[in-house]
């Protein structure tokens, strides 16, 4: 197994040591690179952290399996993308031409962030460990039921399916109760 595959696999597992060493490792170079854009230092650090979140998230979702570049190059592309997105938001962006080759999915569509999502997040945190885990795998890491069955060591897919269904139902009940109360 080469070094790149090792990094990707560690990120997929959410290995803290790898995350920490990448975080520390990429930071000086990223901030140096990012400093040529006209953004406050706080923003740059914020973007750096967002890009790191995106890297970890995409690794977990399995989006790094067929990576054509190194993890580092990929990470810098994400960072650059996010810098441009921030500049665009601040209406300071004039050209985005050299990003056209980079495709990157990052749903940051929290404009719809309503109270219901905030409440759901709260109830999610209060679920049992097993429910949190199965829902996290399904909705966040976008794992299918077969993968969940093996990760959670369920006897078969039907057990996973029933369990997931129960957890959703339970979350829904908590949600309804808090809306009525």
């Amino acid at each position, binding site marked *: 197994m080469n070094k790149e595959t090792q990094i990707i696999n560690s990120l997929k597992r959410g290995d803290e040591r790898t995350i920490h060493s990448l975080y520390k490792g990429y930071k000086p170079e990223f901030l140096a690179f990012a400093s040529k854009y006209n953004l406050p230092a706080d923003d740059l650090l914020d973007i750096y952290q967002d890009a790191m979140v995106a890297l970890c998230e995409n690794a977990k979702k399995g989006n790094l399996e067929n990576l054509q570049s190194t993890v580092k190059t990929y990470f810098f592309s994400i960072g650059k993308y996010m810098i441009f997105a921030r500049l665009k938001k601040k209406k300071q962006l004039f050209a985005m031409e050299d990003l056209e080759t980079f495709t990157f999915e990052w749903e940051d569509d*929290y404009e719809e962030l309503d109270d219901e999502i905030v409440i759901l997040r709260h109830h999610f945190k209060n679920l049992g460990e097993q429910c949190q885990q199965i829902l996290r795998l399904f909705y966040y890491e976008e794992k299918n039921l077969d993968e969940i069955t093996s990760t959670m060591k369920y006897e078969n897919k039907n057990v996973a399916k029933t369990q997931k269904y129960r957890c959703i139902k339970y979350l829904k009940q908590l949600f309804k109760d808090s809306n009525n109360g």
Partner: protein
Amino acid sequence: MDKHELIQKYFENSLSPQEVAQFEKLLSDDREFADEVTFQKKIKKAITLEERTTLKDKFKTFENQKTSNYNWWYVAASIVVLLGTSIWFMGQKEDYDTLYASYYETYPNLIAPVVRNDKETITDREKAFVYYEKQDYDQALQTFQKIINTNPNEEYAHFYSAISLMELDEFENASKILSETKWSEKYEDDAIWYLALLELKNENLEVAKKLLQKTSKSGNYQKESLELLEKLD
């Protein structure tokens, strides 16, 4: 195909073209089905928000781990200095400002999670907490006050105004809000705790003790309250 299975495949991104058609049709014809899809999309967002925040908080702790850069003797030297100061303090009257400073912590934003988005307009509530998290307490305070002007019953706005005032070193005004507001259960404990700290800072020891006795019985400040009471005795 069973509706549950369709929704599941939708989230797994594994619907066949025929199933996509079936899914779309149900979405427009079947109200219950559409509601269920919307609900599960919200679950997805809620979990995503939670996971991202957790990870980002971890990164913030990475930023604070600066000590590893120092040599051991620096740590050793600090311990010597600390020991020295505490010995010095033992012989002194407790320095109440120091006590205040060591127990005071900014109350976290538990109201409106701050997330970036491209939306042009945000509510005053969101705006206030963006300032609050940016530690721009002056602007935060102004926005909380604006919220109170339109809706005097927004309890959180009163509470966070008081915290913002403390951050701005306007202790008297903070104290006024904390003591004069009729708090619900949600903020009562917090309000008493912060008020106790302010009374302590003001060297009103008897009042501070009385307040600390309340927060020492239960709640989030039990441990700290007991510690402080011990120090004040």
